[in-house]
């Protein structure tokens, strides 16, 4: 095992250990609840990064699959009585795999188009899925929404199961990213991102590689949607397929660093608590959306590569400067 791999595993293990211990050490429900939201966005952002960050194809339709996951679990509750304790969590892998499988044909059509067209087609998926949620009234109850059974967890740890579920999904997403980056698939994806035509010319099975990354990304996204539905106990089309959720995840990815392993998580762990703090602090202000747009704009214009790469660059530059200074000193000494 190389040193880098060992360090990576150590970092991952430490993160998982702290993450799991957190809700058992901290008992204040409101803090655990913010943890649920932060992990939810971290998982969504990491999943988005898994496809869009590595292939360079910007998907604007991730929220559609979040919504599909949420509705699939909610409908399963209503028709099959999944139960109201921990059992629904075990249904999640099925939900994720199913939704991702169903999304493959659409992805195949969309991926045949150019980058910009792909972005737009995925954006229209958002509206297609929301319309289905509105229109398939016998399944979804349309705009009236679907009520899920109240979770039966006690008030001393009401949010802990949701926290752990979101954490598990984030760890899965991180693990997948890590594996992908260390595999042939990762190399193929990066080649696609650099120059797709050239990659195709080199005999790389471009479409297959893109579809695998897509499937993994969508599976995680749909499972996060399922946990969210159970956490909220009530879903309806607008928040289930919400462009703002997607934009939030993308913003966090860009803030942390697109195409990096930990960037999306860092972005989410910074932004979600910050957003909650701002809402509590200036909770009665109506400038929320404007502020959000401003932050987004600043991140894109000032830090388009994100915290992690910028930090790394900064470190490298600092080291170089020190080295040149040292060299300069030596030169001056030599001259003297």
């Amino acid at each position, binding site marked *: 095992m190389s040193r880098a791999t060992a360090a990576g595993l150590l970092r991952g293990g430490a993160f998982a250990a702290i993450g799991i211990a957190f809700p058992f050490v901290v008992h204040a429900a409101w803090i655990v609840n913010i943890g649920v939201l932060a992990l939810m966005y971290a998982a969504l952002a990491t999943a988005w990064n898994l496809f869009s960050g590595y292939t360079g194809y910007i998907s604007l339709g991730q929220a559609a699959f979040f919504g599909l996951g949420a509705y699939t679990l909610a409908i399963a509750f209503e028709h099959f009585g999944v139960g109201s304790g921990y059992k629904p969590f075990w249904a999640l892998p099925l939900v994720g795999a199913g939704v991702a499988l169903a999304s493959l044909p659409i992805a195949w059509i969309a991926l045949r188009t150019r980058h910009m067209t792909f972005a737009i087609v995925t954006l229209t998926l958002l509206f297609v899925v929301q*319309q289905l949620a509105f229109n398939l009234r016998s399944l979804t109850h349309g705009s009236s929404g679907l009520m899920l059974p109240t979770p039966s967890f006690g008030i001393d740890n009401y949010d802990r199961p949701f926290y752990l579920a979101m954490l598990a999904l984030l760890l899965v997403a991180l693990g997948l990213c890590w594996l992908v980056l260390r595999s042939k698939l990762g190399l193929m994806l990066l080649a696609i991102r650099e120059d797709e035509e050239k990659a195709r010319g080199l005999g790389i099975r471009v479409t297959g590689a893109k579809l695998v990354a897509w499937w993994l990304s969508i599976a995680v996204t749909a499972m996060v949607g399922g946990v969210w539905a159970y956490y909220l106990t009530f879903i309806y089309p607008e928040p289930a397929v919400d462009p703002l959720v997607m934009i939030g995840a993308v913003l966090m990815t860009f803030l942390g660093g697109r195409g990096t392993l930990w960037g999306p998580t860092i972005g989410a762990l910074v932004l979600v608590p910050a957003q909650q703090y701002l809402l509590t602090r200036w909770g009665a202000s109506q400038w929320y959306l404007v502020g959000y747009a401003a932050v987004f704009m600043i991140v894109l214009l000032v830090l388009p590569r994100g915290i992690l790469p910028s930090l790394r660059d900064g470190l490298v530059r600092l080291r170089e400067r020190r080295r040149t200074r040292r060299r300069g000193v030596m030169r001056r000494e030599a001259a003297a």
Partner: protein
Amino acid sequence: MHEVVQALILGLLTGGVYALMASGLTLVFGIMRVINVAQGALVILAAYLSYTLFSHFHVDPFLSILVVTPAMFVLGVAVQLLFVRTLRGPDASELSLLVTWALALGIEGVLSVVFKTTYRATNPSYADHSWDILGYRVSVVRVLAFGASALLLGLLSLLLTRTRFGRSVRATVQNPTAATLLGVDADRVRTLSFGLGVSMAAAAGAVYGVLYPFNPGSHYDLISRLLSIVVLGGLGSLGGAVVAALAMGSIEAVVAVEISPTWAAFSFFVVLIAFLLVRPQGIFGLRERTL
């Protein structure tokens, strides 16, 4: 049959206004490889400006185009200089997608603070008038809206085919590098074109406010339609955008009457996906190398 024809008339008239909005979007893409996701929000902003002119100064909404369009042109130029131009590097196109989205959110936020979220509508005295033509009822404002859109689209096409500026624009669309070598100031062309694209949104917005009630959140629905139109028409193709907009208008109107209004918008998305299956580049789009 009567119903279907009536729906078709309505759909085509509506499609004309959408064509005007989409023209700005596709023009900007052709020149800059930038999708302006804020186009919908800019339409709504213009609708509010026109609404304010009408309700406070009694300016006719169709005349307000003359005021709103230049004002929004300036705004467009500012947006290009402040936000879009600063993006560099290989990801510039993708980043511009997100930057303009942020802009759309910002516009929505400001509008909902200034105008609140209740629906508004610009209601000139002739808003309810309609003509009876061969047994078909045709509303006056819709004909006016279609006429204004067609006129502006005509002017735009004249500008692109008959003027020096138009030639530089077309040269830039076809081959940016060659255009620069031939002495076209690419930066200037881009800036003016972005302004022009936003002006189209502005003119359409003034009209939109008369046809439909709107609120700051209306831009989500609008932009999803506009993007579908330009993709169906072929990104960068003006003619394609017009054909696609008219197709959207008529498909939605007929489905609304014959099947159900809840499936109207959906039907157009299905047409779009099915079409892309056959022709990924859209109606008039060129099969370009994947960028």
